[in-house]
C-alpha cells in the first residue's frame, strides 16, 4: 500500500465518520465500523464473496448423506415412507430408465465422496450432484456440516436453559436470521457489513454489494446499498434511443430531471427518486464496461446471442432428459461479467448474492430436488470454470446458504421445516475435499412421539440441532475476505464470541 493510498484511506475514513455521525443512535457503532474497515482494507488485490441462497429451506439430509451402516439404516428406516418414499438409493445402484422421472429408482444410487477426514464414516452426495462430487474431488469445494443460526453452543442437555434464535422454523424469519442475525425486520446483513468494512478498497462504492435476484437483507450495509443487476446486465431507463416521443428534450427531462429527483418533500418520493438516480447512473457505467455475454469465457459466441440458448448456460433437466436454460447459471454469468469489469467499476472488494428458489419441498420432493440439484451442480461447475478462466480462482469464494434444513422425518412425499443444514463452499482459496465440523449422528424416531432420543444432534422430527453457527461460518469467510480484526469481526458476527472457534479452517 503506497503512502498516497494510505492517505486516501485516511481521508475516506474521516469523510465516512463525519457522514455517519449524522445518523443518530447508530453512529457510534457505525463510526467504529468505518474505522475498523479503513484499517482492514489496506489491500490492492481483488476478492469477492458470492452467496448462493437456496430459498425455501434445503433438505440437506438428501444432499450430503452418511453411508456408514448405522447412518444408512437410520436413514432408510425414517425416510422410506409411503406413498412416495423420499429415501435415495444406496451407492452403486444403477438408474432404472423405466422408473418415474425424478424417482430414486430413476436417479440411481447416491454418489460416494471421500473426504480427507471422514470422521470414521463414509459419505455420498445426491445423484444429481455429480458436478459437485467432481469439484469436491478436485479439492475446490468443501462441505460444512450442520450449520445453523445459534446464539451460543447448544446441546440437547442445555437446550431448555440456553439462549436460542427467535422464530425458528419460520421461512421469512430464518432467511433474515441467516442473513442478518435477527428475524424479519432486520435492516443490515453481514454481507453488507463486510461491504461497509471493505468499501474503502473500492473507488466507487456503488458496486460493493450486488444482487442478481432481488432485494436481500444480507447485502444491506449500514452504508453500502445493494445494487440490482439482471442476468443480462443493467437496464437503461428510457430505452436505447436518444429521443422520447420525438423529443431529445423530453428524453433529457426524463433521465436528468423527472424520474431521478423528487420535487416533493415526501419521504417516499425521495426514496423512489434515489433508487432511480442510482439506476440511471450505474447503468451508464455497467453497460459501457461489461464484456458481451456471448464471449469467452462467459458465454458462447452466437449470431443472435441469447442466454437461454447458450450451451454453457444450459443443463440437462433430469425430469425430461432435455437441455434447458439454467437461470442460476445465468445469474452467475452476470456476476462473472461484473467481476470482469471490476477495474472500470472501481471495485476491489465485492459481495454478491445469487439465488435459487423452490426448496420448500413439503411434497413432491423427489422431482423438485432432482431438478434443483441438477441446476445447482451445473451452475456451480459453470462458475468455477469461468472464474478460473478469468484468473480469479483464488479471488472468489462461493458459498451456499438457505432458510433452514428440514425434518429428517417424511410426511409421505416431502419434508417440513427444520434448523441445521449442510453447506458447500467453493473456490480456489477453499481447502476443499474435506468436511469442516462434526457430521451429525442420524437416529431413528421414537415409537411414541416425534423425538429422536437416539441422536444427540436431532430434535423433534429429526431436525438438526446445529453444531456450527452461522456466525462461525461467516466469520471464516470474512477473515479470508480481509476482516481479521477481532473487534471488527464481533461487530459483524454478534454471537461469534460465544463460540470457541472463530475460524473453521476451510479457507487458506
Amino acid at each position, binding site marked *: 500500500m503506497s503512502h498516497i493510498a494510505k492517505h486516501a484511506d485516511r481521508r475516506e475514513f474521516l469523510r465516512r465518520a463525519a457522514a455517519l455521525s449524522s445518523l443518530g443512535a447508530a453512529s457510534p457503532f457505525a463510526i467504529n465500523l468505518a474505522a475498523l474497515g479503513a484499517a482492514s482494507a489496506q489491500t490492492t488485490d481483488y476478492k469477492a464473496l458470492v452467496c448462493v441462497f437456496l*430459498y*425455501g429451506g434445503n433438505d440437506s439430509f438428501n444432499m450430503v448423506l452418511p453411508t456408514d451402516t448405522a447412518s444408512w439404516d437410520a436413514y432408510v428406516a*425414517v425416510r422410506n*415412507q*409411503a406413498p412416495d418414499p423420499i429415501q435415495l438409493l444406496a451407492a452403486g445402484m444403477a438408474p432404472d430408465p423405466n422408473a418415474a422421472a425424478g424417482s430414486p429408482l430413476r436417479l440411481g444410487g447416491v454418489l460416494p465422496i471421500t473426504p480427507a477426514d471422514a470422521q470414521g464414516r463414509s459419505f455420498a452426495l445426491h445423484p444429481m450432484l455429480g458436478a459437485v462430487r467432481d469439484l469436491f474431488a478436485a479439492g475446490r469445494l468443501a462441505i460444512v456440516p450442520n450449520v445453523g443460526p445459534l446464539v451460543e453452543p447448544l446441546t440437547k442437555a442445555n437446550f431448555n436453559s440456553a439462549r436460542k434464535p427467535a422464530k425458528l*422454523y*419460520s*421461512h421469512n424469519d430464518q432467511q433474515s436470521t441467516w442473513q442478518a442475525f435477527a*428475524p*424479519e*425486520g432486520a*435492516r443490515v446483513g453481514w454481507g453488507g457489513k463486510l461491504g461497509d468494512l471493505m468499501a474503502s478498497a473500492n473507488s466507487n462504492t456503488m458496486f460493493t454489494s450486488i*444482487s442478481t435476484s432481488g432485494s436481500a*437483507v444480507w447485502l444491506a*450495509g*449500514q452504508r453500502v446499498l*445493494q*445494487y*440490482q*443487476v*439482471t442476468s443480462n446486465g*443493467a*437496464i*437503461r431507463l*428510457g430505452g436505447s434511443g436518444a429521443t*422520447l*416521443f*420525438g*423529443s431529445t*428534450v*423530453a428524453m433529457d*427531462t*426524463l433521465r436528468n430531471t*423527472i*424520474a431521478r429527483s423528487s*420535487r*416533493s418533500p*415526501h*419521504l*417516499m*418520493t425521495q*426514496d*423512489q427518486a434515489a*433508487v432511480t438516480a*442510482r*439506476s440511471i447512473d450505474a*447503468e451508464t457505467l455497467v453497460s459501457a464496461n461489461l464484456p458481451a455475454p456471448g464471449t469467452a469465457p462467459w458465454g458462447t459466441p452466437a449470431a443472435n446471442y441469447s442466454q437461454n440458448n447458450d450451451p454453457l448456460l444450459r443443463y440437462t433437466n433430469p425430469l425430461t432428459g432435455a437441455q434447458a436454460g439454467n437461470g442460476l447459471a445465468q445469474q452467475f454469468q452476470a456476476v462473472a461479467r461484473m467481476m470482469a469489469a471490476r477495474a472500470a467499476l472501481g471495485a476491489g472488494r465485492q459481495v454478491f448474492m445469487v439465488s435459487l*428458489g423452490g426448496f420448500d419441498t*413439503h411434497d413432491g420432493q423427489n422431482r423438485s430436488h432432482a431438478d434443483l440439484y441438477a441446476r445447482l451442480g451445473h451452475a456451480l461447475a459453470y462458475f468455477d470454470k469461468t472464474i478460473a478462466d478469468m484468473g480469479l480462482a483464488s479471488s472468489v469464494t462461493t458459498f451456499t446458504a438457505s432458510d433452514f434444513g428440514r425434518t429428517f*422425518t*417424511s*410426511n*409421505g412425499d*416431502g419434508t*417440513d*421445516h427444520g434448523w441445521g443444514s449442510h453447506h458447500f463452499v467453493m473456490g480456489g482459496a477453499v481447502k476443499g475435499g474435506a468436511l469442516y465440523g462434526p457430521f451429525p449422528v442420524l437416529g*431413528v424416531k421414537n*415409537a411414541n412421539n*416425534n423425538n429422536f432420543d437416539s441422536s444427540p444432534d436431532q430434535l*423433534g422430527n429429526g431436525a438438526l440441532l446445529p453444531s456450527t453457527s452461522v456466525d462461525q461460518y461467516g466469520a471464516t469467510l470474512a477473515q479470508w475476505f480481509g476482516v481479521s480484526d477481532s473487534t471488527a469481526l464481533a461487530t459483524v458476527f454478534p454471537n461469534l464470541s460465544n463460540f470457541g472457534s472463530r475460524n473453521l479452517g476451510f479457507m487458506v
Partner: protein
Amino acid sequence: MHEHHELERPRAPAGALRRWFAAVLTAALAACGSGGGGDSGGSPTPQPTADIPASRAEAARFLTQATFGPSQADIDRVMQLGLTGWIDEQFQQPATQHRTAWEAADAAAKAVDPMASAGNNDVLYAFYQGAVGGRDQLRQRVAYSLSQILVISMVDGNVGQYPRGTASYLDVLGDGAFGNYRNLLENVSKHPMMGLYLTSLRNRKEDPRSGRVPDENYAREVMQLFSIGLYELNNDGSIKTDADGKPLETYDAADIAGLAKVFTGWSWAGPDQSDARFNGNSSARDADREWKPMQGYAQFHSTSDKAFLTATIAAQTTADPDASLKVALDTLFAHPNVGPFIGKQLIQRLVTSNPSGAYVARVAAAFNDNGAGVRGDMKAVVKAVLLDPEARDAGKLGDTAFGKLREPVLRMTALLRAYGATSDSGRFLIGSSDDFGTSLGQTPMRSPTVFNFYRPGFVAPNTATGNANLAVPELQITHETSVAGYANFIRGVLQNGVGARAAGATRNDVQPDLSPAIVLADKPAELVADVDQRLAYGTLPAELKTAIEAAVNSVAIPGGSATQAQIDAAKRNRALIAIYLALVSPEFILQR
C-alpha cells in the same frame, strides 16, 4: 424480533413545507370545477348525503384508495352519491365472475381446436376484465388486496396446472371482500388451489408405526399469515410484551404439530371418499374438482387428540375432518389478533403504509363488531378503512410520511382507467408481467412465494423512510432494475397499448384513449393540468408540471404546409410526453 411499526412519524413541519402543501391543496381543489363528461345517467337521483366530497379531486383521491384508479364516470358517481352512498352501491354491484370468464375462454378455444384449452393467462385476462373494465371496482380492489394476504400463486408448478382453479379462487376472494372473514377463511382453507399451494391437499395422518408425520405447511402459514400472525397484538396493532419487554408469541412448534393433524385427510371433491379420489387417480376425478371445496376423507384424517392455541380436539373414535376443521377455524377466527392483523394489512394495501395505532384500532373494532354484534363483517371493515378520518383528512396530503407507493400493477391500471382504456376483444388480454427488467416486476396471482411480493413490515435500509422507521412494503420490489423496467414498460403501454393481440388484430388488445389529452395539445399548461387531475388528483408539484410543460413544448406543432398527419403526430407526441413524464415521476408513484 418483528419490527414494531407503530412508530412516531415526522410531522409536517410548519413554515416552508406547510406553504408548499397549501399550494398543492389549493391547486388540487381549484381544478375540481372542470370534470369529464360522465356517463352515469339513468340512475335515480339519490338523496344527497353528508359525505359528498368537497371537490372532484377529493373524490378522485378516495377512488384511488378504493378502486383500480378513478375514471371520470366514477368521480361523477361519487360526487352524486357521496362516499357512503357510493360504497353502498358498490356493495350491491354484481361480482365479476372470473371462473365463468375462464370457462368461456376455454370453450372458445375448444371450438377452434378440441384439444386446446384456456391457460393461466386467461386467469389474468379475467382479472383485468374486472380490474380495468369491471363495475364492481371496490369488491375487486379489496379482493386484490386479499390476494396479497391469502396468497396462492400460479408461479407454483402445481397450482399452475389448474388455471380454472385460480380463476375460482379470485371469485372466492371477491365473495370474501364483502362477506364474513370466518367464511373466507374456511373457503380459502378448503380451496383445492390452496390445498395444492400449501400442500394440505392429500396430506395424510401420522403413522406411529412407520414414523410418518403430517405435513405442517398449511398449519403454520394459516396462523402466521392468514389469521393471527406471530405475536400477540393489541387492538391498535402494537405487539404485546411480557414483563421483560419481550414480544409474546402466539404459537409454538407444539401448536403447529397439533393443528397440522386437523389438515390431514383433505383432498379433491367428488361424489365419494375413495382412496383413488383422495390420491387424485385418473380413475376418480370430478370434472369440477379444481374449484369445488376440498372434502374430508376420514380414512386419512388423524384421530389422535389435537391441541393448539386454546383448543383441544379430543381423540376421535371415528375420524371427523369437518368437525376438526370447524374447531380449528373457529379458534383462529375468535383470536383477538385477527382484527388488527388483517385490518392493518388492508389499510396498507388501500390507504397508507404506516397507519396510526388509533386508525388500526378503529378498523379492528369494526372487525370485532360491525355494530350489530357480528364479528368479521368485511363490509364494516371496508367502510372503516376507507371512511376513517385518517384516510379522508385532506391535511394528510401534506404529511411527508402518509400514504404508500403505488405498486406497479396499480400504476398501470390507474393509467388505463384514467384514460378510459377499452379492450378490442372485450377480454382485456393483459398477461403476465413478471419480469423486473422488461415489465412491471409484478403480476396479480403470481407472487414468488406465500409471503407475497413484499412484506407488510418492510423497512428499506439506508433510505429516508428507513431512517424515519417507516414501513414501505412496495420498496421491497423497488430497485435499480425495476425502476427502469417499469419506466420502459409503461412507455409501451401508453404508446402502443398493452396485451396480446386477438386473432387478426393489428394492435395490442387494450388501448388507452388519449383523445382528452390530444385535444389539449396546443395548450400545454392545460394539458399538464388535465394529466395532473386524471392521474394524481391535482397533487403534482408546480415545479414538476413546469418541467413537463417545457418538455411538451419541445415538440413543435407544425404549421404552414404541414399535413394533417404531421400535425396529428405532433399533437399525439405532446400528449404522450405529458402523460408519460407524469407516470414516471416519483410524485405520481406516491399515493397519498
